[in-house]
């Protein structure tokens, strides 16, 4: 699961405790993606003027036949007739809304797992709106063997910035392999020693023939 999708799923858990409302906004005709985004911004502005307390998340989905459309998840009831008027004002076509359980929001997460179309490169496929603290990728802390080793190496070798990022990742992957095969504690060298106490020979010991890189 990508970090973005994880952040989305955690956000939906924060957003609602019991149930959520899933809205789908589509067009009668297929528009280009930039126009769709402009119209979405217009619609969101109108909706936030009408319902200032409205908060939720939106997801862009590129449909195989219908082009780009928008899904919205909100945690409160909004009058669909008023929303429809606003949508027409902003140049949107059909609207659909249904109540979903919190777990149902995971359904929207599946769009985030799909391969990103080239025209949506660097786009935020999902985003929160309104006055609430949704989960952002920078707020996520990963807990895995790889991340534990990476943090230990960062502390040991004083890694800062992005310089040599791919070499670092290769190095950590190699240490992960060594840790798994030799049974080392995550983030430590042989005998449970912290990595900064290990010399090059100790890390390499027994790996002379088995160089993975």
């Amino acid at each position, binding site marked *: 699961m990508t970090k973005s999708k994880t952040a989305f799923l955690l956000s939906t858990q*924060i957003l609602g405790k019991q149930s959520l409302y899933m809205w789908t906004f589509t067009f009668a005709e297929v528009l280009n993606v930039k126009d769709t985004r402009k119209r979405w911004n217009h619609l969101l502005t109108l909706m936030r003027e009408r319902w200032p307390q409205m908060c939720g998340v939106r997801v862009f989905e590129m449909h195989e036949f219908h082009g780009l459309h928008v899904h919205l998840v909100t945690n409160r009831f909004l009058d669909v007739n008023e929303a429809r008027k606003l949508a027409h004002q902003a140049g949107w076509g059909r609207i659909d809304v249904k109540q979903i359980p919190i777990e149902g929001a995971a359904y929207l997460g599946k769009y985030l797992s799909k391969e990103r179309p080239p025209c949506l490169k660097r786009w935020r496929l999902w985003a929160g709106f309104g006055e609430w603290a949704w989960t952002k990728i920078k707020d996520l802390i990963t*807990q*895995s063997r790889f991340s534990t080793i990476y943090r230990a190496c960062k502390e040991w070798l004083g890694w800062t910035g992005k310089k040599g990022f791919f070499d670092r990742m290769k*190095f*950590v992957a190699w240490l992960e*392999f060594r840790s*798994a095969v030799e049974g080392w504690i995550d983030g430590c060298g042989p005998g449970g020693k912290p990595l900064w106490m290990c010399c090059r020979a100790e890390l390499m010991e027994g790996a002379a023939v088995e160089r993975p*890189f």
Partner: protein
Amino acid sequence: MNAPELLRKVCTGHLMIVGEVRSAEIKESGVVDKNSGLRVSVWLLVYFVELNREHEFLVAKITRRVPRDVADPTSYPTGAERGKCYAFEVECVERKHGFVSARMGLAEPTEIGPGEGGAPVPAPSGAGMGGTPLSLV
């Protein structure tokens, strides 16, 4: 599984990775939101497999999800024994950080009978993917 069966699987469109298991472990992997404190975690079976390539040492990291309904994931059988040769049916493969990284579906690894997959061919000294990254140390 023997070689003809393996070949038949490959020919019918199954993605297979065959190699000697160097390590098979169950590990928890998770993500925590430092603001809300919410956590998502998953138990993974992680296999490090040495691929049977001639004159090249290549390691594959293969992961498989432990089913959610398992009460004690730590005691879930790994389905592979260190030092033996297995065929892993995988769903996707990519090259990541110098490893071959792959993800399995629900199918368990299948042991390859002796003489079928064969033991890995030892790599010559220095062979590999660009040298050990110890230059960083």
